[in-house]
């Protein structure tokens, strides 16, 4: 059996939750062959894998969203579409639900590169028609350039070559979802979708916050990403998420309920559960197994720790992760210096986390957005409770879901609220008994619900069922 996994901007270029999950899954299924379809933002990353690919990864295909920017103008490209295809392409340009099967066929049979469509008379005619009939008051040239930048990666992927596989499994919607839809349509093979975070919701939040997109076009971009989600939701035979509320969101935004399923993350419980209790040394050691990235909001973490040290001077903070965003990492280090904090350790990525957990009392996670963070599960497996922000699945992990009576395994705080995070940290700092009790609750939870063999077995069954 060969499964093609489709990633966008994660494995194997970056460390992180999705990458760890993918690497562990592939490694845990050595009898299944995997191909990788990879989409990255910049072509300078080609081949720059931070993971050594397991032996059962047979081939990789890489596509980069900045590659079509180098496309030289085709000399008067000509495209020929049927009236039905033209109508569907128009809908795609308007980011409405459209028939991607027709669109894919239409572009794959043209003799010019699909992205040359954006330089063609046919596109101009369609675009001007849309501006005349539908977007009558929108700025003409601004909308033209926006439409071009929006559709360029979509068209670039339309004629993408796909590895042969028995099933195509997208690990997000967005461009990965689109590429999976294309592969499935061309080969006739089934497609699957697993979402760790809800891609379209995350893009929506980013668009709303962003200052690089004009306010006039934010809605259009949001609709664009929902259109891409809808494309794979309608075609995937199975749509999985990591936790129940994520699955509900998928259904809310159009995923057919009968195809949705929850498969939780899993960790190497035996490995992490070997971590022994920390020997008392007069300090409370707080760990954060996170990479230096803005999404992890390490600056708020540092501010919160500063507040903790005002009333609990014997606290130490360990930030254990690589500098994914070098500029941000330097800013965090500068903040530590600026606040005069001497008890913040930043040793980088730790290869033997179970051993390092023996130095920690509890962990902290201050992310702005999460799915089902592996770092929390590993912390629980090591018997360490956690303070986490109320994003993604964190509440469910800390307090347990329906039917889970193990009790709380830490505290939940408001994202971006350094004071609230500090208060929750102080609750644990001032109560070693709670640290021990909550840590035990977490360990039991991780042991029962979040073991990797269970997760791997579920995916194996999923593949067998689908293929």
């Amino acid at each position, binding site marked *: 059996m060969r499964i093609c996994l489709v990633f966008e901007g994660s494995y194997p270029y*970056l460390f992180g939750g999705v990458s760890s999950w993918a690497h562990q899954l592939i490694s845990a299924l050595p009898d299944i062959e995997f191909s990788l379809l990879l989409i990255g933002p910049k072509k300078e990353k080609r081949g720059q894998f931070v993971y050594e690919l397991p032996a059962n990864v047979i081939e990789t295909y890489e596509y980069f969203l900045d590659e079509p920017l180098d496309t030289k103008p085709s000399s008067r490209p000509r495209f020929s579409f049927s009236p039905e295809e033209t109508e569907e392409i128009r809908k795609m340009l308007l980011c409405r639900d459209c028939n991607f099967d027709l669109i894919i066929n239409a572009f794959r049979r043209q003799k010019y590169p699909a992205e040359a469509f954006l330089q063609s*008379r046919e596109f101009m005619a369609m675009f001007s028609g849309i501006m005349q009939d539908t977007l009558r*008051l929108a700025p*003409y040239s601004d909308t033209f350039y926006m439409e071009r930048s929006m559709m360029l990666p979509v068209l670039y992927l339309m004629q993408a070559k796909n590895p042969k596989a028995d099933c195509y499994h997208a690990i997000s919607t967005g461009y990965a979802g689109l590429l999976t839809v294309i592969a499935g349509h061309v080969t006739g093979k089934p497609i699957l979708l697993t979402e760790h975070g809800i891609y379209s919701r995350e893009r929506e939040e980013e668009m709303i916050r962003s200052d690089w997109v004009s306010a006039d076009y934010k809605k259009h971009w949001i609709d664009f990403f929902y259109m891409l989600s809808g494309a794979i939701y309608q075609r995937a035979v199975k749509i999985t998420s990591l936790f129940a509320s994520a699955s509900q969101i998928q259904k809310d935004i159009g995923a057919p309920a009968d195809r949705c399923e929850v498969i939780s993350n899993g960790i190497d419980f035996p490995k992490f559960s070997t971590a022994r209790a920390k020997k008392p040394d007069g300090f409370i050691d707080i760990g954060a197994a996170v990479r230096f990235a803005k999404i992890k909001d390490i600056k708020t973490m540092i501010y919160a720790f500063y507040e903790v040290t005002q009333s609990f001077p014997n606290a130490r903070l360990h930030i254990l992760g690589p500098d994914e965003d070098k500029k941000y990492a330097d800013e965090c280090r500068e903040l530590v210096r600026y606040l005069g904090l001497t008890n913040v350790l930043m040793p980088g990525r730790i290869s033997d986390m179970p051993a390092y957990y023996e130095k920690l009392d509890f962990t902290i996670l201050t992310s702005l957005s999460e799915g089902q963070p592996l770092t929390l599960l590993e912390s629980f497996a090591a018997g360490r409770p956690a303070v986490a922000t109320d994003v993604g699945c964190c509440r469910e992990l800390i307090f347990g879901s329906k039917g889970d009576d193990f009790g709380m395994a830490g505290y939940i705080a408001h994202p971006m609220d350094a004071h609230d995070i500090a208060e929750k940290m102080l609750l644990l700092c001032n109560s070693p008994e709670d640290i021990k009790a909550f840590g035990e609750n977490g360990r039991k939870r991780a042991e029962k619900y979040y073991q990797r063999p269970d997760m791997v077995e579920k995916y194996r069954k999923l593949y067998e069922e689908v293929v």
Partner: protein
Amino acid sequence: MAGIGFELNKLFKEKSFSAKVRALGYSGIVVAGPLVLGIAFVFMVTFMAGKYGLSLTDRMLLSAMITYAIMASLFLTGTISLPVTRYVSDCLYKEEDENVIPSLYGSLAVILPPGAVLYLIFLLQSKFSFTVTLLNLMLFLLLCCIWLQTGYLSAVKDYRGIMLSYVIAIGAAFLTLLLLHLFFGAAYWIFLMSCVVGYGCQVLFAFSLIYDFFDSDEKGAFAFLPYLKKYFSLSLIGTLSNIGSFSHILLAWRSRISVHVGGAFYTSPYYDVPAFYAYLATLVTTIFFVTRAETAFFEKYSAYFGALNSAAPYYFVKEKREQMLTVMWADILQAAVLQVLTTAGMLSIGVILFERAGFGILVQIRSYFISLTLGYSMYATANMLTLFSMYFADYKSVLIDDSIFAGGVIVSTALIMTYGPLRLFGLGFCLGAFFYLLVSYINLRVYTANLEYEVLAKKPLCRIRKEEAPACPEKT
């Protein structure tokens, strides 16, 4: 050229007849002055040479020397004049006036040395005396300066000053001739010297006009050079346009009707004279373009591109486009009608004048005049069409137009002058101009039929600079 056009347009709008006559005169002087001045020099010098007793052969040689210098300098400067003009336009647009004058020096530095070498090689074949060779060379170099200065003068709105410079040039040349004749008699070189002095005065006066208008700065004399590469097509266009316009004259100089006047100089007076007069037919369309078509059109053109570059919706952009194209085609039609009337007038009056001047007895001169007038009339209209294409930066089409023009003129003229009857020698240029007109019309029609496609969609998918690249969506 729009600067002059707008200023002249104000004069045209004045109600008095004299203002309109002045406006017509000024526009003619500005757009065609240098070439007309050259023709005037030729006639002045040859007329005075005749008065002072020079032989017909010597007079023809003098005329050929001046004509060759005009032609050679025109061809040479034509290779860079359009990119340089484009550079100057961009400087004016960006309000970087201080870069303009240095670019004039830079372009002179680029053109004069190789031009001097090439022309000297040509002159040495004639084995003239040192003085005559030097004066010919100086004449050529001064004419190169004048052609290059013309592009800069079109931005200077002092049209009285420009006309004054021509008057001073002719006057200085005439006075020099009189003075030198007093001291040296009818020596051959005094005629060339008078031209050198005349053109020299014009160059100096033009410099003073240019310095008055633009800020001067010693830096960046060669800042225009990248434009030669970036706008190489403009260099080709300028060169091909000159080839098309004048190669038939060069071919006539080596044809069956050519006369060897001395050294390496050959002319064909029976062809040259009607050609120069026929060239005057282009004035009508050129003046009309500068004063009316370019100004009225330019306002609509600015409105259309302003709409495209601002946040205007499609219905507004479409409306501005239709207004612009309506004005453009109406002006083209009006210019074409004027040209037809002028051509008809020139043909009827010109033929009579030729007969009165004693040329009429030669059928071939009359037929040259007719065919060349028709040819230059079509050339003028085609040239206007290509100028509109240049407004839309459709350099590719203009290059095709001018290639067909140059190729058509050379091929048909060469064939006719080699195998055809003498009286049809002007037909080659006429045919070339006809194809030029046809192709330039078709190209402009096709381009403007789908303007948003040409302006927006055909441009490359732009490269985003790193500092402007949006942040990659964060992944959990």
